[in-house]
C-alpha cells in the first residue's frame, strides 16, 4: 500500500483537523455509492479509508510515523464490506426506486412509457422506422409510376409513386421498417424521393413550363406547331405576330394532383437561323431602315 500521507494528499506535519478535512473531501469524491458508474471508485475509496484509519487516529499515526507499523498494517482491519450500490443495481423494481420523485408510474417521463408508448409490461415495442432515398424520372413524378427498389437488407419493395410527387417528398410505407419487439408492430420505411431534372419541362407548382422555339416566319405569320407535354405531344396554334416571351397556356396539360390540375405554360422564343445568309441580312437591314423601331424603348430610362 502506498504512503497514507500521499493518499490523503497531506504533508507529514498536517494537523488532525487537516487530515480529517482531506479524508472527508476525498471520501465524498470517491464514495462508490455516490459514483455507481465509476468502477475504480470502490478501490480508491477503500484505500482512502485505510489511509485514514491510520492517520485519523493520533496514536496509530504516531506508531506509523515512528515505523512501528507499516501502511499495510491497517488493511487487515478493513472488513469486507457491502456497498449500497450492490443492492440498488439489482434491477428495475428495486424498492427505493422513485422514492426521489413525486410522480406515479404513469408519469410520461418514465423511460419505458416514452420508448414503448406504455409501461414496460411485456416489453413489446414498435420497430424503428428506416430511411431510404431514391430517384425517379421527371415524367414518373408527374404522372405517377410503380417502382421496384431493393432495400439495404436485400428486401425488394414495390413503391407507388403518386402522380404529382414533389422533389424531396417523403413516402411512408407502413410496416416496411424494422420488425417490432415482443409482438410490437413493425416500423415504417420512409422513402425520400428525388426527382430528376428534365431537359425540356420545368415544374412550377402544378404548372409545367417549357420554351417553344419558333422561326421568325412562324412567329410573324402564325403557325400550328407540335409541342411536347407531359401527357404526350399536342398541336399548338401560334397566333400571327407572336413574339419572344409571349406565353401560351395549354389548359389542364400540367400536373395532375389531388390539389387540382395544373396547366402547361409555353414560352415562345424566336430563333434566328444558325447561319443567316447575306440575303436575309440584307433584306432585314433594308426593311429596318424603312421601318425603324426601338425594341429597347422600355429600358431607355433605366439603364
Amino acid at each position: 500500500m502506498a504512503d497514507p500521507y500521499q493518499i490523503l494528499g497531506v504533508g507529514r506535519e498536517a494537523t488532525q483537523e487537516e487530515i480529517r478535512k482531506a479524508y472527508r473531501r476525498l471520501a465524498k469524491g470517491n464514495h462508490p455509492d455516490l459514483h455507481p458508474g465509476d468502477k475504480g471508485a470502490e478501490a480508491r475509496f477503500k484505500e482512502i479509508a485505510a489511509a485514514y484509519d491510520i492517520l485519523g487516529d493520533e496514536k496509530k499515526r504516531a506508531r506509523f510515523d515512528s515505523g512501528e507499523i507499516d501502511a499495510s498494517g491497517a488493511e487487515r482491519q478493513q472488513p469486507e464490506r457491502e456497498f449500497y450500490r450492490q443492492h440498488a443495481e439489482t434491477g428495475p423494481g428495486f424498492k427505493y426506486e422513485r422514492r426521489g420523485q413525486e410522480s406515479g408510474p404513469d408519469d410520461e417521463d418514465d423511460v419505458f412509457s416514452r420508448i414503448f408508448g406504455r409501461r414496460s409490461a411485456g416489453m413489446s415495442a414498435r420497430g424503428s422506422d428506416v430511411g431510404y432515398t431514391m430517384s425517379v424520372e421527371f415524367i414518373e413524378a408527374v404522372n405517377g409510376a410503380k417502382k421496384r427498389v431493393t432495400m439495404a437488407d436485400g428486401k425488394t419493395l414495390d413503391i407507388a409513386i403518386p402522380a404529382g410527387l414533389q422533389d424531396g417528398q417523403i413516402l411512408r410505407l407502413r410496416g416496411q421498417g424494422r420488425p417490432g419487439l415482443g409482438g410490437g408492430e413493425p416500423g415504417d420505411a420512409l422513402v425520400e424521393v428525388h426527382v430528376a431534372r428534365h431537359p425540356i419541362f420545368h415544374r412550377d407548382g402544378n404548372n409545367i413550363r417549357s420554351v417553344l422555339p419558333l422561326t421568325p416566319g412562324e412567329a410573324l405569320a402564325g403557325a400550328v406547331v407540335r409541342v411536347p407535354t407531359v401527357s404526350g405531344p399536342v398541336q399548338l396554334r401560334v397566333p400571327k405576330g407572336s413574339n419572344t416571351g409571349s406565353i401560351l397556356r395549354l389548359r389542364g396539360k400540367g400536373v395532375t394532383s389531388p390539389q387540382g390540375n395544373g396547366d402547361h405554360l409555353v414560352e415562345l422564343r424566336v430563333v434566328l437561323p444558325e447561319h443567316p445568309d447575306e440575303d436575309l441580312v440584307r433584306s432585314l437591314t433594308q426593311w429596318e431602315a424603312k421601318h425603324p423601331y426601338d425594341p429597347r424603348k422600355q429600358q431607355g430610362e433605366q439603364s
Partner: protein
Amino acid sequence: MTDGTIAEKELIDAVAHLDAQALRRWVDLGWVLPQRDGDNLGFDASDVARVRLICELHYELRIEEDSISVVLSLMDQLYETRCCLNALLSAVAAQPEHVRAGIAALVKAQG
C-alpha cells in the same frame, strides 16, 4: 424475524454510530423503508446497506441531515435511471446485428 430481515436492535448493534432515535427519525422521513409488523421493524439487506451509507455520510463525512435528503433523492433517481438503462442495454444486446447497428447509428447521430 424469519424472512431475511433483521430487527431494529440487531441493526443498531451492527452499524457504527447508529442510535435508535436517529434510526426512527430516518424511517419517519422515509429515507429507509423497513417492513412493519405492528410496532416492529424488519430491515432487509438493502435497508442495512442504506442505513450504513446514511451513517457514513452523516457521522463520518459530516453531511448535514438536510443535505442527506437531497443526496438520497438524487441517488435514488440515479440508480433508477441506471437500472432502466441496464434493462434497455440488455434488450438492445439481445437484438439481431442489424437492429443493434441501427440503434448505434441513431445514438451516434444524436451526438
